[in-house]
């Protein structure tokens, strides 16, 4: 078995546990589409077209509530605006890569792919590329299947199970993996705390405000570290 096969297998194997938190999203998505009155196949088409659970759920629930196209799209894009941060952050890793990969890679740049790609410190661009694409398209395939299944199963899961809690749990696990010095832990806690403070801003924009202020704190901490 060559290196390439090994990297691809590793990408697939590391994706599967991280897909688990997406399953409640797929079920919630199924519930939202069912309640919106949008034809199931049309609602599902947002999976390949948008490929972002939080944005898809926001879009379809607002459309279902009778929001205008402009309002629903704006809200969904604000929810997805953290992708701008991912794009900036991963940009250095996409240098020394072929152009086709710079255009194709972003299509599968979801939260989990970002988290997995960030903790990889591959020196070799080809290894990074194989890993990134195998992770990305493993999630893609599972998401297409699970959102389709969610259209049927979502309405059947009892509310009291609160399976949506699996999502913050798995992101906590990802956060712990990403923290390798106290400054990062402080930034994460401050960003989370500020998101609580700004929770009632419209369209979930508290998330963005909290994250941006947290990154600002990171900048300050780095400036202090340099002076020492």
């Amino acid at each position, binding site marked *: 078995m060559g290196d390439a096969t090994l990297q691809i297998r590793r990408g697939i194997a590391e994706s599967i546990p991280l897909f688990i938190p997406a399953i409640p999203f797929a079920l919630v998505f199924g519930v939202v589409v069912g309640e919106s009155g949008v034809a199931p196949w049309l609602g599902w088409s947002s999976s390949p077209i948008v490929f972002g659970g939080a944005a898809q759920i926001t879009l379809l629930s607002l459309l279902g509530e009778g929001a205008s*196209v402009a309002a629903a*799209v704006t809200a969904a894009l604000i929810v997805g605006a953290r992708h701008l*941060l991912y794009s900036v952050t991963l940009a250095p890793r996409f240098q020394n890569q072929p152009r086709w990969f710079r255009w194709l890679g972003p299509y599968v740049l979801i939260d989990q792919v970002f988290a997995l790609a960030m903790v990889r410190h591959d020196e070799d661009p080809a290894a990074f590329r194989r890993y990134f694409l195998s992770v990305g398209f493993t999630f893609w395939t599972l998401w297409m299947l699970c959102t389709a299944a969610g259209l049927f199963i979502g309405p059947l899961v009892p509310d009291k199970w609160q399976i949506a809690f699996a999502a913050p749990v798995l992101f906590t696990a990802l956060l712990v993996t990403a923290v390798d010095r106290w400054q990062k832990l402080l930034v994460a806690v401050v960003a989370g705390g500020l998101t609580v403070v700004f*929770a009632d801003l419209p369209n979930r924009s508290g998330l963005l405000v*909290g994250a941006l202020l947290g990154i600002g704190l990171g900048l300050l901490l*780095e400036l202090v570290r*340099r002076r020492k």
Partner: protein
Amino acid sequence: MTVALAIVLTGIGTYLSRAIFIVALAERRFPPLALRVLEYVAPAVMGALIVSMLTTPSGDVQIAAPELVGLGVAALVAWRSRNHILTLVAAMFSFWSMLALFA
């Protein structure tokens, strides 16, 4: 047809937000300070995202004892084991136990 239009617009916007810097910064050199600050993006976004996931659509943050215990167990198990499945099982089990206790 308005639904299809909304989905396509969201798809284009989402793709652009993921691609813009990767494509635009392909040939630029990054200053060292910028690279170090970028390391804080993941912790900041994840911290904010976790809270956002515990927020109801009307803007109420739902963090009570069951959530705190669940996330605390998640952090501890993830830190000790680095195993996501084990983390998920332990955290969900303690979350459900707390819910049952408080119900």
